[in-house]
């Protein structure tokens, strides 16, 4: 799937509109996060604690899943388990069919994208109403999310305006972002209230109460899952937390890292379906617990990745993401966390370019609220790609040749002396083109070596 990463990245780099759009949202997010972190005393210690909470859960995941399941069932919810994406979609479709659902309202969930739920619903002939504003925009455009928090960040206001004018019954009268948001509010409200099934993800699953926690700034999760007769939750098994107070710590970290807020506007804990005399709420609540490669990640060196709380800070601060946006990555999850997850989800052979598309500047790891060592995990994929022989023959050949030469000191020194002098033939101070270096010089100049090699200078000074 990501075989065309280089082509997509080149296309993205050549798109000036995309660059403006990505910069507007990611730049704002970066500024707001910095202010929120500066205002929080001891954020570094809080990150360490957040990582420890997630590590504890991942180490005892079986225990917490069983505890959560028992409490959710006691509250009247139905709990389903799925090992794969296809099995998860089949469970959701089966619930929809039994409910006689013609339409579902869906509140943004990256897991839903990961398991291909939008496509599965379309194939089953069930109308899908995306209620998150950004998801609504990309549904109208027929596109995929380009960011896990701002799925439509690649769109400019002008592009959104054109879409809404073409597709909304009563579009905005003036060209402001506020008026466009109002247009979506008018358009989506009736659709939400008329849906047969509401589908949401989960930000946290609380083991000691069986509650499902969702957070949104728009309030669309609540409007999507309270009116319909059936509420389906699709959740990754890593979303467990022991208790409410553990969730509280992670909620503080999530909001600050994602949007710079102290807390997301709407934080809701759902425990089971409507009770006898309740005035609203669904009659059935289903929770689908989904593995889809997570147990394998835990066992094969990617347990730290299961800490991820999907805040998006790593991509907002990534120099590569800021240049190419999310679509170029080709998977469900873009940016640094996506470059770690996509090889696990889609296979390394199809995505070996992603771990390479990293400068190793370490910024993602610095801002991660749960201290995921993203550069280390990316390097792990690079090594695996080498071990499995997935690197192109030219790269393998060049590295082998270098490794051989590096083991013969006289040859290596002779070679570098030759190279340092030879390279000067291609430019005085800067080299703008040179054989075998076009991958570098096509986009930037290469400084020409000045003076002699390190070993030459070292020997001279020792004398």
């Amino acid at each position, binding site marked *: 799937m990501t075989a065309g990463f280089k082509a997509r990245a080149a296309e993205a780099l050549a798109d000036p509109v995309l660059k403006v759009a990505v910069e507007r949202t990611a730049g704002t997010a970066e500024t707001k996060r910095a202010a929120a972190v500066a205002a929080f005393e001891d*954020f570094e210690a809080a990150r360490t604690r957040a990582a420890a909470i997630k590590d504890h859960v991942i180490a005892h995941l079986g225990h917490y899943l069983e505890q959560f399941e028992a409490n959710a069932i006691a509250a009247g919810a139905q709990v389903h388990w799925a090992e794969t994406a296809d099995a998860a979609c089949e469970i959701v479709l089966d619930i929809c069919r039994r409910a006689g659902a013609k339409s579902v309202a869906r509140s943004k969930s990256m897991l839903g994208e990961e398991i291909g739920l939008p496509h599965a619903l379309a194939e089953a002939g069930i109308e899908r109403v995306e209620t998150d504003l950004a998801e609504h925009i990309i549904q109208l455009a027929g596109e995929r999310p380009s960011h896990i928090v701002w799925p439509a960040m690649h769109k400019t206001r002008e592009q959104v305006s054109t879409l809404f004018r073409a597709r909304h019954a009563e579009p905005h009268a003036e060209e402001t972002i506020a008026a466009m948001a109002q247009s979506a509010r008018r358009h989506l409200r009736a659709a939400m209230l008329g849906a047969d099934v509401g589908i949401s993800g989960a930000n946290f699953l609380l083991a000691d109460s069986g509650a499902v926690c969702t957070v949104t700034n728009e309030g669309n999760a609540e409007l999507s899952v309270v009116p319909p007769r059936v509420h389906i939750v699709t959740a990754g098994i890593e979303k467990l937390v*022991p208790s409410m107070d553990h969730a509280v710590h992670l909620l503080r970290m999530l909001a600050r890292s994602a949007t710079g807020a102290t807390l997301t506007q709407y934080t809701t804990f759902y425990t089971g379906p409507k009770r006898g005399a*309740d005035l609203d*709420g669904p009659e059935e609540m289903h929770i689908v617990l989904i593995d889809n490669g997570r147990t394998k990640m835990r066992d094969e060196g990617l347990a730290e990745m299961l800490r991820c709380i999907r805040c998006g800070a790593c991509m907002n601060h990534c120099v590569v993401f800021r240049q190419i946006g999310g679509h170029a990555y080709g998977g469900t999850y873009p940016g640094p966390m996506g470059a770690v997850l996509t090889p696990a989800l889609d296979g390394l052979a199809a995505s070996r370019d992603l771990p390479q598309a990293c400068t190793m500047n370490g910024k993602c790891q610095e801002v991660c609220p749960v201290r995921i060592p993203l550069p280390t995990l990316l390097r792990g994929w690079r090594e695996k790609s080498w071990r499995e022989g997935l690197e192109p023959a030219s790269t393998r050949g060049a590295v082998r040749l270098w490794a051989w030469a590096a083991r013969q000191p006289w040859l290596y020194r002779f070679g570098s002396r030759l190279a340092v002098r030879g390279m000067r033939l291609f430019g005085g101070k800067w080299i703008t083109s040179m054989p075998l270096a076009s991958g570098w010089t096509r986009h930037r100049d290469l400084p020409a070596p000045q003076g002699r090699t390190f070993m030459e200078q070292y020997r001279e000074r020792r004398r």
Partner: protein
Amino acid sequence: MSAREAILRRLGGNAGDVADEARALLRAPERPPVDPAALAETFAERLAAPSVAASLERVPVAQQLPAAVARHLAQHVPMPGLYLPPDAWLQALDWRGIALDAAVTVDGGAALAVATAAVAETGSLVLDTSPTAPMLPNFLALHHLVVVRHETLVAHLEDIPAPLEQPRARYWITGVSGTTDIEGQYVRGAHGPRFLHVLLLG
């Protein structure tokens, strides 16, 4: 083997006292400091923050609540009709003079709710569903009015009392419905309330 068994078998059993370890993770959590002697002041400051954007009115006694609500509606809500939940305590007050609506049917209306608790740290309002407290009107209304009893104010999110009986939904509202989905620009009134007015009682 069922999917459940397969997943749990791969995850394996657990050694040691999980509960003790979980509790130890919460010892002295890092969080914004809140002066316990100034809960109401801190709460008011948080409500006024741009990301929360709620207005606040202090109401000394419950009997003055309907008049305060009436004034707010007259000043800020052009559309007549207020949704009042069938809460016995609320219904016992004298609401004559305010046009009431049995449901929020048209976008633009107002709904009133009573908070279970409120949090000074964040300016959050804690609401629980019950047979006398539906959830939907609080998301359908454009103007949301929430009554907070002064004695239910707590310092931090961890201090919110656990419910005696787990409600179907407990929801924390920290500001008005907003979105930054178009070019990262913050717009209020995305799907839910555009205006949030807190009536702090006592």
